[in-house]
């Protein structure tokens, strides 16, 4: 299987920079999986699990926002927020999920529904990465 270079960059650090043969993530258009040799494409990221498949190894991370730039031989993810499972606080994520559900269930005219939904998705991504 062909490898491509996967780079994940956040404003604070270079999160990941290694060869991988497949990467899966959630975008605004749906879930995608990318192999080497993909057509050039730029997508916007939605909160979800990022799965990196390397030779004999698989890694997961919670990816919350940013965008991805795909070229045939390299993939760059500009992530505003991304975490490895060990960096996630389960209790906080669960509390955040409850709060978001609450807000969506009892919505008023002032509720920012898009923001509440994003918060819910983020919390769900965090929790499912841990499980």
């Amino acid at each position, binding site marked *: 299987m062909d490898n491509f270079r996967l780079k994940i960059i956040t*404003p604070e650090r270079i999160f990941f920079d290694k060869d991988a043969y497949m990467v899966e993530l959630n975008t*605004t258009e749906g879930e995608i999986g990318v192999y080497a040799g993909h057509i*050039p494409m730029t997508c916007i990221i939605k909160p979800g699990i990022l799965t990196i498949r390397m030779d004999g190894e698989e890694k997961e991370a919670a990816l919350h*926002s*940013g965008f991805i*730039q795909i070229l045939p031989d390299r993939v760059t993810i500009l992530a505003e927020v991304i975490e490895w499972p060990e960096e996630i606080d389960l209790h906080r994520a669960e509390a955040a999920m409850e709060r978001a559900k609450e807000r969506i269930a009892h919505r008023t005219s002032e509720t920012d529904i898009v923001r509440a939904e994003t918060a819910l998705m983020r919390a769900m991504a965090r929790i499912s990465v841990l499980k």
Partner: protein
Amino acid sequence: MASMRDIKRRKSSIQSTQQITKAMKLVSTVKLQRAKQRAENSKAYFDCMYQTVSSMLAKAGSIQHPYVTGNDSTRKAVIMITGNRGLAGGYNSNIIKLITKGDFNKEDLDIYAIGSKGRDALARYGYQIKAVYRDLAEEPAYSDAMAIAREVLNAYNAGEVGEIYLAYTAFKNTVSHDPKLIRLLPAETGTETEAEGKEAAEALMNFEPKDEEALGLIIPKYVTSLIYGGLVESVASENGARMQAMDSATSNAEEMIDSLSLLYNRARQGAITQELTEIIAGAEAIS
């Protein structure tokens, strides 16, 4: 000539000032190292962001999006990054001058002030301060930049302001910092020639969702990253400027101490000579 006691008092006061400036210099040196590291860590992100956005904008000539075309409002928002503290040479005043001496109309400006020095100065000149973020002039986090970006973009989308500017101090290296004023929105679309050059490299880039929508989602991220970049560079510049200012203050104090020591020794010798002359004269009068 000042008396010996006066000179001595003066000297010790300068000495204690020198101790303070020396300590401040050391502190800002350490802070500078840290801030520089952060600025370097974030560089990769901005370079990549800039490339993506400029290649997008290069072919955005025909795109009709408020982020590119602008809106009707004549008001302008300026995000101004200064420090919370002074004693940093021209660091704060250069940014303030950029706004007061620029070709802005005072009445048309909404100031988003980061750091209290700039806020105080512009409030005194009678500018309208829309918001103040005091706490993040020391250790900016990306989430802070997101909060600011959200606020100015809301104002932009609501049509309250028609242009957004960022005034910050670019960090070139430890000794040179440039006060800069850049326009964040409306984004400048690439010119034809530029677009052609880019075209070759990114000829086949597809956007998903389609161009207009992608632009609407990426531009806020771009603005956030520019604000964050401005913040980390400004923090590095502030500490660099303070380090330099305190370094020259320390060496000035050193100079003053040297010349005062000379004066003091001269006065001391003069006093001894005078005393001797008096004793000899007294002894001669007796004999």
